């Protein structure tokens, strides 16, 4: 029977994993090591600013172990959504670190593939004119030529096709730009001739490492064994166990629908799946189905600058101040606007977040009683950093000395934990592109480049 074994070391490259688990996982003779490095979870800043999610130190530490393991076993290592967002700077950063590791360890005779996932704006514009670009989500703003122009870079999530191609071409290390999280896992299984339904469903579970186990953790290894009739998820660390609930629950994880999952060129239907515990901490999954829609669509992601932020963190312990917080905030904004009357009021905004009142839920908070102390964030967002700094500083000093009715604490309304108090934070981004675009097939937009070490 055709079978494929994939070792997933952790949920995110740079999160780390116990060395013991990894070595034990390697003893189980995987056909490939696959690790996801990407996410949009941390917001649009990583893509917009071209920076990573994890530190270079952690990224290199994980990569060094993975490269050592894959070279020793002579199996491919695949990195999905390199550098977090999978755009050019993220892929280049990953390549540089991998090249460093190969050189430092004197590893030679390896073939490295880079699969680029950046989509030229010219192509997007053409497809927009052909009505082949649609929003993905009810609150996604329409993609206008102007918003596209403001967007720093656009990537698309690749499916398994270019990764399978790189495996066919004998790549030992594959650095994928932005990829659909399960795709690098699915590619290994599909390359081995296993059914795409099991390949993608297993990929969906494996891409998060041991989060599918109990207790769930993104910092430990799992092995996926995928064959012609289904797949098995097996945690490596004896402290972790997969249960049918934990794996089924993970099928749910961070998806808009519990059993219909859309990916590039694929729709998974997991309604009839069965999850069975095999008695050794593993779970066997069968019944996954897959469809291949006639029109191939890829998901585009792009970020644009939304403004610059400066903020200050403070605490309030005075019951009158807390009780009058709404009035104080309103008064502070009015006084700042009066003071900067010569500055366009549209060029900045002042926001308050009150932890202890409704910091997390905003207007959805249903608990109304007031606490004895609150944490306050005063935030200025402006067209320039200089303006954000000025607005925040004035808002802070106004708040500190604001004289509301009945005030007793006339020496100051805020307790600052730090000096200086204001944090000149930098750029804030917004996802300006989150759209589906029609393509001819899974290969069209993803160029592959090879080099030998």
């Amino acid at each position, binding site marked *: 029977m055709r079978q494929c074994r994939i070792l997933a070391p952790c949920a995110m490259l740079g999160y780390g994993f116990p060395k013991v688990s990894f070595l034990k996982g390697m003893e189980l003779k995987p056909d490939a090591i696959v690790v996801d490095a990407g996410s949009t979870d941390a917001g649009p800043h990583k893509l917009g600013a071209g920076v990573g999610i994890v530190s270079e130190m952690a990224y290199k530490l994980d990569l060094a172990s993975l490269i050592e393991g894959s070279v020793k076993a002579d199996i491919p290592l695949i990195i999905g959504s390199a550098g977090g967002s999978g755009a050019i700077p993220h892929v280049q950063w990953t390549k540089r670190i991998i090249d460093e590791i190969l050189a430092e360890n004197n590893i030679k005779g390896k073939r490295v593939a880079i699969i680029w996932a950046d989509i030229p704006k010219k192509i997007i514009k053409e497809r927009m004119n052909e009505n082949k670009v649609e929003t993905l989500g009810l609150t996604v703003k329409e993609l206008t030529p102007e918003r596209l122009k403001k967007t720093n870079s656009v990537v698309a999530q690749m499916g398994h096709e270019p990764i399978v191609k790189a495996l066919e071409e004998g790549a030992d290390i594959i650095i994928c730009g932005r990829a659909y999280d399960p795709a690098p896992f699915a590619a290994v299984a599909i390359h081995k001739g296993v059914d795409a339904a099991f390949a993608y469903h297993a990929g969906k579970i494996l891409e998060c490492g041991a989060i599918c186990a109990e207790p769930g953790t993104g910092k430990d290894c799992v092995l996926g064994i995928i064959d012609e009739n289904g797949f098995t998820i097996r945690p490596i660390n004896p402290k972790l166990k997969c249960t049918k609930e934990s794996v089924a629950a993970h099928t749910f994880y961070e998806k*808009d629908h519990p*059993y219909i999952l859309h990916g590039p060129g694929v729709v998974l239907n997991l309604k009839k799946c069965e999850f069975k515990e095999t008695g050794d901490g593993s779970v066997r999954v069968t019944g996954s189905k897959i469809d291949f829609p006639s029109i191939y669509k890829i998901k585009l992601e792009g970020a644009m600058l939304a403004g610059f932020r400066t903020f200050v963190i403070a605490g309030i312990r005075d019951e009158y101040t807390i009780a009058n917080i709404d009035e104080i905030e309103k008064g502070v904004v009015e006084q700042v606007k009066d003071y900067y009357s010569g500055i366009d009021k549209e060029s900045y905004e002042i926001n308050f977040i009150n932890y202890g009142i409704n910091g*997390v839920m905003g207007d959805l908070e249903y608990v109304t009683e007031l606490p004895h102390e609150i944490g306050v964030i005063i935030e200025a967002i402006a067209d320039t950093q200089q303006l954000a700094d000025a607005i925040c500083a004035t808002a802070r000093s106004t708040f500190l000395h604001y004289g509301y009715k009945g005030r007793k604490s006339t020496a100051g309304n805020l307790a600052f934990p730090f000096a200086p108090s204001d944090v000149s934070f930098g750029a804030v981004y*917004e996802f300006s592109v*989150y759209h589906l675009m029609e393509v001819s097939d899974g290969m069209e937009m993803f160029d592959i480049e090879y080099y030998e070490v």
Partner: protein
Amino acid sequence: MRLYDLAKIVRSKNSGPFEITLDILFDNKDSYDKVKNSNILTKEYIAKLYKTDVNKVTCLTFYDQALGIKATLARKISSGTCKDRDVYGAQQYAPLANIKID
């Protein structure tokens, strides 16, 4: 009984930067059936709880195999931009947790 006490897992998370998805999972069929058959959880109810239009609730599905319920709604503010309060959307289940199930 509160839904938070009845369920094994109650959680929220982004499903992409423009949606929040709410998961309620159970470790026994009785509790799952109790909540499912109470008919309390509807798109309309979720919309009311989250102060949004019912057409912004894109999914409310019961998944018997996993003893799980999922609801997904469009974010008013996309993840990580100005005025977002929860970049990962990981703490947005509180209104759900407090639902009373008789």
